[in-house]
């Protein structure tokens, strides 16, 4: 918590860790990984920040209001993306049946709605990890 080298290394590394987590989330349908693994990586970046810089600064980065909103709206986003299929006259969570252009095979945009759904699930998992960690950290020993 008071280590100069640790703080500088974390300041250099954590943006890249978060970017890698977002990469794993967004490429969940074309490469190994997915929204669950990527979300945990994004959450772990915030957890590492909190363990190194202290509880107050970590809580300032992610207030309780933000985690509450993200957890609720991440789930709602999943449902809304599922309802796109229903509104177009296809089953719930329909992708190609709802007439969405799937594009070229192997490209990032080839997933249709899957990438958007994964984004919602990913930020929800990240915020759940952060909430679990803060709930335990703020408990008096």
């Amino acid at each position, binding site marked *: 918590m008071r280590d100069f080298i640790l703080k500088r290394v974390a300041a250099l590394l954590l943006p890249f860790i978060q970017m890698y987590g977002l990469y794993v989330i967004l490429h969940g349908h074309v490469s190994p*990984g997915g929204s*669950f693994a*990527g979300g945990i990586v994004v959450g*772990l970046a915030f*957890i590492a920040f909190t363990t190194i810089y202290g509880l107050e600064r970590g809580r300032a980065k992610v207030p309780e209001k933000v985690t509450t909103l993200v957890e609720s709206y991440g789930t709602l986003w999943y449902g809304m993306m599922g309802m796109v299929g229903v509104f177009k006259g296809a089953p719930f969570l329909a992708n190609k049946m709802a007439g969405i252009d799937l594009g070229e095979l192997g490209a990032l945009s080839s997933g249709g709605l899957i990438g958007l759904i994964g984004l919602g699930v990913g930020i929800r998992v990240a915020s759940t990890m952060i909430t679990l960690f803060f709930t*335990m950290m703020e408990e008096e*020993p």
Partner: protein
Amino acid sequence: MGFTAVDYGTMVMLLILVVASLAMYFIKDLLHAVIVYGAYTLIMALVWLQMNTPDIAITEAAAGIAMTVLMMVVISRTARKED
């Protein structure tokens, strides 16, 4: 129905998994058990990678690290020795 032979490297890793699981059960110091669990997670991710499921390997590595960190936090807030 054929028997798929597992190569020796995977066999050694599976053996380490069994030993680590039993060790986690018998170790009384919870911090040591969490450290053994971290090693277990690493070996488990390598086993998934050997079995051609990189998807699960990434999830195992990420979730294992997250669980290790959360258990460390729990130990720092409660007693370290098991009764």
